């Protein structure tokens, strides 16, 4: 039985979780200005830890493991970082750090001022999000993951309605109800799995799971719950208002990372826990829903009047691509590795591109005083760096070379073609065209006309952060070989049913 002892570097895993937890606790206790400083200090430390974890995984070529409390599974809980976890940890730490520094000007507590509501909430909850995401990527225990999902919900929902306008409150409440519904279904599935096998450890389950009623029911329940949380079509209705109404730094984290967490768990579930389940129909269904999401989300994005809403609908569409990897990567065909890397690449490139674009949109909205798309004229002259960020991010969304989005979509495309599943080929191509349409709708007015009059000039550093994130999405297209080998580490060998 593999992996039931703490490996070298294992302690990094628990540190990646406990540091933000400690930061959150201290921020709540101390409050005010200190909350901000704690968040701004710990986020970059998180990047270092994530880097160290990635190095460890790459060096050993095997997952890094930590046994919490010295009690090994099934009684205790194990943390495990494979290549996918490591890369997600790194992405999370980078984007959270960027969001923290981006948010500094909006959520500063001036010296001597008393604690204020919005900054206090933002700085504590962003650390809550950081902790929750790290647990999702590291935990090897299905119930522990339930608690992580709840943490994620509780940290994300108040950020949506931070400014207290009625429409944000409606969005937050709908989001919360969807998320709770998702958690309860997930939890019910967890219960059934425990009832059948007496363990919730992912590795132990992988060895024990057999196709039987309890497992089918659990798989269905957990998948439905996670789909509601990741906002896959047709359960996407809560997402656009929630993501479009949060403050820019919050939108960036919600769209880039928070919806990826349930997706990550779906991958864990189907690839690591249930690989022995005959699942062709289910996987085709997931991909069909993904396809519908791509088409519907893109068409709705094309019709939006507001920039942030357009970007939010584009998230609905881009999540759809992630689900194309399920039928392709889970078959054990020659193309499965391409599809796997394509899916991971889409996760990463969308995260960076979308985070940067939401920040850029927030800057534009702040400087212009509105975010109506038809009135974006002259933005390109007035805020070139911001519009450049929107353009580079858009490049990745469309899947044009040389972006990370291109690599992702190209890999998914070739995998579909090799597998002979031509429907997905058509969907990917159509999705690219539609994305081209909505990105054009942003850029065409922005790049035309005389320089727009700005209420306030954006801070250079904030523009730079947005641009840097989208550039990372671009550079993913040039990822070195070691990056790909990292993604493959710890992937359990896919066995046919």
């Amino acid at each position: 039985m593999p992996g039931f002892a703490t490996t070298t570097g294992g302690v990094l895993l628990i540190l990646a979780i406990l540091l933000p937890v400690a930061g959150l606790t201290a921020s709540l206790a101390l409050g005010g200005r200190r909350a901000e400083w704690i968040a701004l200090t710990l986020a970059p430390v998180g990047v270092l830890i994530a880097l160290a974890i990635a190095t460890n995984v790459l060096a050993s070529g095997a997952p890094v493991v930590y046994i919490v409390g010295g009690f090994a599974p099934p009684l205790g809980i194990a943390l495990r970082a494979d290549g996918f976890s490591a890369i997600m940890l790194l992405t999370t730490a980078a984007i959270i750090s960027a969001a923290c520094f981006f948010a500094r000007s909006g959520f500063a507590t001036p010296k001597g001022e008393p604690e204020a509501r919005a900054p206090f909430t933002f700085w504590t909850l962003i650390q809550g999000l950081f902790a929750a995401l790290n647990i999702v990527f590291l935990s090897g225990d299905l119930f522990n993951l339930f608690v992580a999902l709840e943490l994620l919900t509780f940290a994300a929902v108040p950020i949506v309605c931070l400014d207290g306008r009625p429409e944000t409150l409606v969005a937050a409440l709908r989001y919360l109800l969807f998320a709770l519904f998702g958690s309860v279904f997930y939890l019910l599935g967890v219960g059934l799995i425990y009832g059948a096998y007496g363990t919730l450890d992912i590795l132990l389950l992988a060895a024990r799971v057999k196709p039987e009623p309890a497992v089918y029911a659990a798989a269905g329940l957990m998948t439905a719950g996670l789909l509601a949380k990741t906002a896959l079509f047709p359960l996407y209705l809560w997402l656009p208002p929630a993501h479009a109404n949060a403050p820019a730094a919050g939108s960036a984290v919600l769209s880039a990372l928070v919806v990826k967490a349930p997706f990550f768990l779906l991958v864990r579930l189907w690839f690591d826990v249930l690989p022995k389940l005959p699942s062709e129909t289910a996987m085709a269904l997931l991909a069909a829903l993904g396809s519908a999401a791509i088409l519907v989300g893109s068409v709705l994005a094309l019709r939006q009047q507001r920039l942030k809403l357009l970007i939010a609908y584009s998230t609905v569409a881009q999540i759809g691509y992630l689900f194309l990897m399920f039928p392709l990567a889970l078959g054990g065909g020659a193309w499965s590795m391409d599809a796997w890397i394509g899916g991971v690449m889409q996760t990463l490139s969308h995260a960076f591109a979308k985070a940067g674009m939401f920040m850029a949109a927030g800057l534009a909205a702040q400087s212009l005083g509105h975010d109506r798309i038809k009135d974006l004229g002259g933005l390109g002259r007035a805020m070139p760096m911001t519009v450049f960020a929107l353009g580079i991010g858009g490049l990745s969304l469309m899947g044009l070379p040389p972006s990370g989005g291109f690599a992702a979509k190209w890999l998914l495309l070739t995998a579909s073609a090799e597998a002979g599943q031509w429907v997905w080929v058509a969907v990917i191509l159509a999705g690219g065209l539609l994305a081209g349409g909505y990105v054009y709708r942003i850029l065409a007015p922005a790049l035309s006309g005389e320089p727009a009059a700005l209420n306030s000039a954006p801070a250079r550093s904030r523009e730079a952060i947005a641009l840097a994130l989208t550039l990372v999405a671009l550079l993913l297209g040039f990822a070195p070989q070691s990056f790909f080998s990292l993604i493959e580490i710890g992937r359990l060998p896919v066995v046919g049913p």
Partner: protein
Amino acid sequence: MNALGAVDLGLALLVLAIAGWTIAAREAFAAIVGYVAYGLLLSIVWARLFAVDVAMTEAAIGGGVTGVLLISAAARLRQAQTAEDERPTLPLRLMAAALSALAAIALGAVILSLPEPGPSLAPLAAKNLAATGVGNPITAVLIAFRSFDTLLEKVVLLLAIIGVWSLAPDRYWGGAPIAPRAARPVGALTFLAQLVAPIGVVVGVHMVWVGADEPGGAFQGGAILAAMWMIVMMARLSEAPPVGAPWLRAALVAGPAVFLIAGASGAVTSGAFFALPQAFAKPLILIIEAFMTLSIAVTLPMLVAGPPRRAPL
């Protein structure tokens, strides 16, 4: 069927009837009375499932504290325009009913298909119980075997309180919430609070203390203490503190903070985060439980009290 079977069957039917009422009742108040009764019945069901610890938690949190939360919310919603007119059409409701019925039947079938006797971690828990020094296996699971879950769940409570507070208008930040309470002091209520609260505190502390070996523990005791503070506030003998009060912040984080420190010290003394050195395991668990109880006793009433509704002084 023996007498016990009849009791169980009656109980199950009762639970279902009252749950159905809670869902179907037209008025919010009627539904919530149903829910309070439901929580009560459920705690008896839990007792019958040999889950005394859960029964205590359900009695205190499920029926008691949640009940007060819902009742006071319904009272404040009375003036609001409800979404009554948005009631879905009959075909839609029929579809929802069919879907729900299908889900229930499928779930029931799956539950009957589960192995009997089921797989269990009870033997493993029993074997490792000695290492923790406590006799109540549930406490051992919560504070030792799966302490990581328990810590994170405390963090969920912290996030919830930050989230609830964040819903205050900006001008009230730093001010105090208004807990549900009588419109003015009432003799009978004051008398009740003065008499019940001290007894409840003794019972709550007792539950934590015996929780190491008997049913009970930080959650159950903390919830009872929370309920006592709420009774005192309802009688207007005490008020919710301002959200910025340093002692309040300290009390909220005391549980998770001590848990974190104990967990980190485990890394030094026993080689793993959250590992407990065998010689000190039991006292350590009691210390952690004590601070967790404090945090729970303060967090639950503050969650019920809601966001600050007064400008800071």
